């Protein structure tokens, strides 16, 4: 009620009293701040428009429909969009977004696995393991990420052989300084059934796990489900695959005049960028995991030991579930950082958003404001989406009031 009637008694005040009134003064300062900020923006945009007009720059987004006229380093984005120099600038945007997402996605998975392992190892009672993890964290956390990207990239270029002297594994996988060449799987008719079999396998494995969990809850009898799960998830689709007569053709890479042709090429720019980002971000995730584990009360571990749980069981069933509650928010923030740091790819020419679209297209068409706005909006959308996820997880993980 107070807030509504806050100003009702001001009517009776004199002008002088009004000036010295705290609430009036606070309101005045807030309004003034808003007015100043908005007028600054207004002047800025006004100036911008005038300057653009004075230089005869045509603004707008029509350039997106124009022919790009250049080529992009062939990687997933180009394959999916089927990019060629005849594609439009809008398609460059799509290629760039896909490449950003691929790098961020793989980077997030790798850094999580690595971070989790290092974070746990950091607290190991084994002196060597804990020291080594500590050294890893201190080393990679304290070197600027741009430097690390360039480091890995140059390692790949200089340590790996020329395509003509590729390292090959049974003529199946090839490694050289133009990338990693894997066989490209091309699904044939009937491969859909293998996929369906896999889904069914995963579904029934989850059901089975639940079933035995319920059994354990009721009777206390433990059943190891790993064997069943493996059979359902891997063996079942493989049997279906073989029964259908292997409906998958592999396109192997073969040596052409300059490069390996065919296959699925993973370019060194991608490997270097993703590796550098993962290794770097993993140090922060490891620290988040460590702080999470250390936040779990010592008594919890002692209690777990007291009821006869092994150290692994104690970690898996008692410590980690509680540690993750503390560790997940900073970890998701690191995912956000990783995604934003992927824009450093411009340094090594991986065609992601900032390099292919915010770099090449910007230089070619010169529509700086439009292009950088689009790039910013994409990063903003990614960041906000991760924030929403973070809030959801936070709510979900919050300690239930009992």
């Amino acid at each position: 009620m107070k807030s509504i009637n806050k100003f009702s008694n001001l009517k009776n005040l004199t002008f002088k009293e009004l000036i010295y009134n705290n609430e009036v003064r606070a309101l005045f300062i807030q309004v003034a701040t808003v007015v100043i900020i908005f007028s600054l923006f207004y002047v800025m945009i006004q100036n911008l428009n005038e300057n653009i007009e004075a230089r005869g720059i045509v603004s707008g987004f029509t350039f997106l429909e124009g022919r790009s006229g250049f080529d992009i380093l062939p990687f997933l984005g180009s394959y999916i969009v089927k990019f060629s120099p005849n594609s439009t600038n809008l398609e460059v945007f799509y290629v760039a977004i896909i490449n950003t997402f691929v790098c961020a996605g793989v980077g997030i998975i790798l850094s999580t696995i690595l971070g989790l392992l290092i974070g746990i190892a950091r607290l190991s009672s084994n002196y060597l393991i804990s020291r080594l993890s500590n050294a890893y964290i201190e080393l990679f956390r304290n070197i600027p990420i741009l430097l690390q990207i360039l480091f890995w990239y140059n390692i790949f270029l200089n340590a790996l052989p020329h395509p003509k002297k590729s390292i090959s594994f049974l003529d199946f996988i090839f490694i050289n300084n133009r990338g990693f060449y894997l066989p490209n799987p091309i699904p044939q008719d009937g491969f859909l059934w293998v996929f369906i079999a896999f889904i069914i396998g995963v579904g029934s494995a989850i059901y089975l796990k639940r079933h035995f969990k319920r059994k354990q809850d009721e009777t206390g009898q433990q059943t190891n489900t790993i064997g069943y799960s493996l059979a359902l998830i891997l063996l079942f689709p493989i049997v279906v695959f073989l029964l259908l007569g292997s409906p998958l053709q592999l396109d192997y890479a073969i040596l052409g005049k300059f490069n390996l042709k065919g296959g699925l090429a993973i370019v060194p720019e991608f490997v270097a960028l993703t590796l550098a980002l993962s290794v770097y971000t993993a140090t922060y995730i490891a620290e988040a995991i460590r702080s999470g584990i250390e936040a779990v009360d010592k008594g919890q571990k002692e209690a777990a030991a007291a009821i006869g749980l092994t150290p692994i069981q104690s970690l898996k069933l008692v410590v980690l579930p509680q540690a993750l509650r503390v560790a997940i928010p900073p970890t998701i923030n690191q995912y956000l950082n990783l995604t934003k740091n992927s824009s450093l790819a411009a340094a090594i020419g991986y065609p992601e958003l900032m390099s292919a679209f915010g770099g090449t297209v910007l230089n070619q068409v010169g529509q700086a404001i439009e292009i950088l706005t689009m790039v910013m909006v994409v990063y903003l959308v990614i960041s906000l989406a991760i924030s929403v996820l973070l809030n959801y997880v936070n709510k979900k993980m919050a300690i239930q009031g009992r």
Partner: protein
Amino acid sequence: MEMSGASVCIQAGTTTELNLADWAGANGISYDSVVVETSAQSLDGFLAGRCDVLTSDVSQLASLRAAMDDPDAAVILGNVISKEPLGPVVRQGDDEWFNIVKWTLIAMIQAEESGVTSENIDTVTTNPTVERLAGRASQTHEYLHLSPSWSYDIIKQVGNYGESFERNIGVNTPIGLSRGPNQLWTKGGILYAPAFR
């Protein structure tokens, strides 16, 4: 055609990038483009074997090749695939400065055509054009708002166009460019200076 399937290092956002795509498309050549931010990076990629070919303007290629530890290890291919004339650039709207830069170039080209060099400029007096180049009996300085000896000073100090070319980027320098179309129009090139008066 021989280049099909090669990896090509290019600098991002350049006309070279567009020219290569046009040329390769027109000739049915496939290639992998390795696009980097700076021309130094494209050289690094080329040296490290990331790409088989490096493409840029011819003069740029020549200077990059000169910067290599072993310039003989790389060859600049003969077929030029686009027109990329380079020259002095001035800001728009400053006509006086534009005139000075423009006439500096004209004076250097005319000097070569008239056989005036940094060495003989004090002695040759064969015809009125040479007289004017040497800064005698000329009004050009009045239009350009320069000192009467402006063209004399240029030629005396840096020489005529040919001298400057040979000294900085010519065949006897590490960059090793031949004159090509940068030859005088009287010798089969396209360099032409209007009447110097």
